[in-house]
């Protein structure tokens, strides 16, 4: 069971990392709009010509 002396602090550290990542993504606005990116990913980038003017 002595492995827990290492495992618990490591687990808490990983949880802290995950929280930091979550807070960062919220603060940067990655979670503000949950709908548009889902539409965006379906789009192909090719097939667009510059306008003829």
């Amino acid at each position, binding site marked *: *069971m002595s492995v*827990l*002396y290492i495992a*618990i*602090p490591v687990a*808490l550290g990983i*949880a802290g990392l*995950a*929280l930091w990542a*979550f*807070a960062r993504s*919220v*603060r940067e*606005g990655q*979670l*503000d*709009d949950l*709908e*548009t990116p889902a*539409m*965006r990913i*379906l*789009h192909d980038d090719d097939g*667009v010509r*510059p*306008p003829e003017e």
Partner: protein
Amino acid sequence: MPLTPCDHCGIPTPAGAPEAVEDSAGTFCCSGCATAYALIHSCGLEAFYGFADETRTVQSKPLRYAEFDRDDFLEAHSTLEASGDRVVTLGIDGMHCAACVWLLERLPQVVPGVSEARVNWRRATLTVHWTPGQAQLSSIADRVAKLGYRPFPLVSATTARGDQAGNRSRIIQLALAFAAAGNNMLIATGLYLGAFSHMSDGMLGLLRWASCIVGVFSLLGPGRTFFRGALAALRSRSPHMDLPVALGLAIGGIAGLVNTVLGQGEIYFDTLSVLVFLLLLGRWMQVRQQKRAASALDVLYRVTPRIAHRVDDDGVHDVPGDVLVAGDRVEVRVGDVVPADGEIIGGVTTCDQSVLTGESVPVTLRVGDQAAAGTTNLGAVIRMRVRAVGAATRIGSVLEEVERASTQRAPIVRFADRIAGWFVAYVLLAAGITFGVWMTLDASVAVDHTVALLIVACPCALGLATPLAISVALGRAARRKILVKGGEALQHLSKPGQLWLDKTGTITQGEMTVVQWHGDDADFARLAALEAQVVHPIATAVVRHAERLALPRPQAKVEAGVGGVTGMAGGHRIVAGHAGFVAQACGTPIPERFMKPATAWVHEGHSPLFVARDGEVVGVCALGDPIRDDARATVNALRERGWTVGILSGDHPSVVRSVGIQLGLEPEDCRGGLLPQDKVRIVEQRDASGPTVMVGDGVNDSGALMAATVGVAVRNGAEASMRAAPVYLGRPDLGALLELLDGARNTVKTIRITLGISLAYNAIAVTLAGLGTMSPLVAALLMPASSLSVIAVAISRRFVKSGV
């Protein structure tokens, strides 16, 4: 050719157009709309059309966006990046699907100098990054418009940003609290199980320290808001729910920390972490449910049109409504909303000023008269010189009144907060007695027992009960198309008081209808043929009545449409209008047999419309705004529930009184001829015994809706009144009002029950802790049990008896 709005998208569709679809379901502009309509109906989602009224717009030709390049406009609406690029967020009208997102985000490929374009689908906005030297905002907007969308500047960009930051930080705090609570519960499980299986001292210490670290993180991180709230409550000497919460958290935290360091006694961090999370959850739900009340500026923006036809030296140009300045000349077409206050310099027309005055009969305006922003031009094309724009207009001052009323509203003490003071006193008293008694019995456990009591007394379920019951009620009300913006409104509506109803559009149907016709049907058909070519509420009423009677429609040509209507119909010369107009046109007074019913109608609150054929008066019809079918029953039901009901209206006092009599109201409670300011004044004269509720629909009501304890806006009302009122009834029947009041009473009852449950749990827990029989395991079970039963009760109670 008659134009019927497409039943799906609202675009006017000419009858018999090649692509139009007309079937038993309705009229559609194209087969795509017909399919969408059928699909929506087959899924049982017809409610869409009720909610979507305001959003369905009609496209017209692109505007001129030259003003977007003005320095002051750029300064107000866009921000400068460090790279020298500018960023603007524009609202976009006309986005429908993923294809629109795709199209708009290809803007950098279409307009040189644009580096990025991002759509936010939910908020219908487009954020554009561009390099000022290489592209101009006007050309970007122009390109977006040519793609078929309508870009417009967002007025509330800065306030929205502040709101967003607050929302983000709340979500982060909630996530931190949740992570801490979850981890601490895992650790606590280890500790409780370890107590049975004789865990080694080293392992025990590890788990206790881990729990301590997570707990302290939870208290000082997301839990900080409670300490801040408690400090503020102490400073302002107003009891607040944060005070007992902070007390429990602080004492538990300190005792837990001391015991962790000493390596003996209870640590309370698992309970404390869960507590912080549940309390934050309750608070977050409450904030989320309460929709942000928009500023008066935002409302103003919605009332005045987005497009104005400005008369420049080189012709008439369409420009966004908010770039007009005093001195500009603008053209206002038939059916348009007047974009600014100003003097008419060309044309004669009638104008629907109900938005300002509440008067449903249009007013005739000539050269030299003042036209007001927000009113609707019904008669003919006019030109006017702009005198005032934006907040300086009459409608702007009405909306400022709204703002004033909203800021002067007395701050409302939240329901649970009122008992918080008593709660603190009770907890402290119990703690004092426990400590005193145990000191005399066994001094070594006195501190432990007292701390245990203070922690179990922490009002977790109490803090959860009110927000939960309210958010459940708001959700259920919304399903019945009653939108309530905050729990306070429900709490106020639970007790009967004074209820003021607006007349036009609230008690009545809000549109002119032909109540009676005294004359020959053939003459009415001729009149209707003529009126079909005029834009006016009276004309619409006449045409609708003729369609209902299925009268034939002869050939007709309007010659003049101001003050009355004159023209040829079916080979006869028809003149229609008020008595003076028709008498003058015929050269003879109105015969007695038509004058007599007309006089009687006026007393009933209807307006007579006389009709002459070839110089001879041949008929008269009564036009009125009929009372809704359920109005009388609703008023009776309201009075049964103990409410005092009255009418406030801008219409003529005799009309208001006759409506009041039909509803069975006391004549002195039916007040007519009121200006918006008068309504505010009357509503503000509330008495202390109960709430003052205002029910109305127009912008002219919005000041009163704000000034009332609770304002209730009704369906089809002006946007301003919807924003001003904390409650919006999305159904045309007045029965929704009764449901709202019953639902409010039920909700407050639910809150009382849940508060009772949580207080009962609390009393048991405090008693056990005081007696020294509260083991940590019992505490760990009792806390979630109380929260769960509160949640169960709040969810299982109905909003109103018959239904959800």
